[in-house]
């Protein structure tokens, strides 16, 4: 193995959890475009299994997996297991007070309406991740 190969950065991993294959597919494409390796899950057990096998930097979870609101606790678990990950939730409606309260209390960083194009949602998440990364880089450069 060459020195160059050993210093290569590990792939950035994203998890997308949604019951609709079409939604999974559009998020996967958008995330691949931004350089993420994406694992998709259609239900809670598959998502939990993926969490035991990968270290995620980003997760997009539907607020509704089996029934209304059951995606929020999964977002909360993702936040606890991967505290530095950007956890976003997509909700079928425009985020109201209760959705925003859930986002805060379950540790999600953002909540998006599902009708927004996946590329736009991913673009917004990646932009926020870059801000955080730049902030920590500039902090580590201060002597």
């Amino acid at each position, binding site marked *: 193995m060459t020195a160059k190969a050993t210093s290569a950065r590990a792939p950035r991993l994203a998890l997308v959890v949604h019951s609709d294959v079409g939604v999974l597919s559009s998020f996967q494409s958008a995330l691949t475009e931004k350089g993420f390796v994406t694992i998709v899950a259609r239900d809670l057990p598959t998502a939990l299994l993926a969490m035991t096998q990968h270290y995620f930097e980003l997760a997009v979870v539907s607020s509704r997996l089996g029934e209304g609101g059951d995606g929020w606790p999964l977002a909360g678990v993702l936040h*606890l297991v991967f505290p530095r990950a950007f956890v976003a939730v997509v909700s079928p409606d425009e985020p*109201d*007070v209760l959705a*925003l*309260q859930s986002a*805060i*209390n379950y*540790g999600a960083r*953002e909540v998006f309406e599902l009708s927004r194009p996946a590329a736009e949602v991913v673009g917004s998440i990646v932009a926020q991740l870059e801000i955080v990364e730049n902030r920590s880089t500039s902090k580590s450069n201060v002597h």
Partner: protein
Amino acid sequence: MPRKRLLLLVDDETSILQTLQMVFENEGYQVLTAQSCAEALNLLHNGQKFDAVITDLNMEREDIGLEVARAAQRVKPRPAIVIYTGFASVPNSRAALDMGVDYMAHKPVEISELISALNRLISKRAVERSR
């Protein structure tokens, strides 16, 4: 002997402040109180290491609790930040989310839920700091 967890409670209603102070002291917290945003900012800037800050949202004026939250965020180490309100709206909830508030409770606040959330947030922070 481990130090008691230090909590800052902020509310302009004396009766609520006294009730919450009693509740959290019974839970083993050391509690400091402030009856306005200005008083809270003074306490936050005087070097005390708070484990958590719990603030009402509307006091001297609407949404001023967000200013307490903003000031608490700049304190190192950053305390857990909890806001409670009877006047949640999309703009103030959005602002709290964007700011990174850790917990938001709507009035009437379920005390057991608040205690449980606070204990969880403080333990989580302690684990993260020790990593």
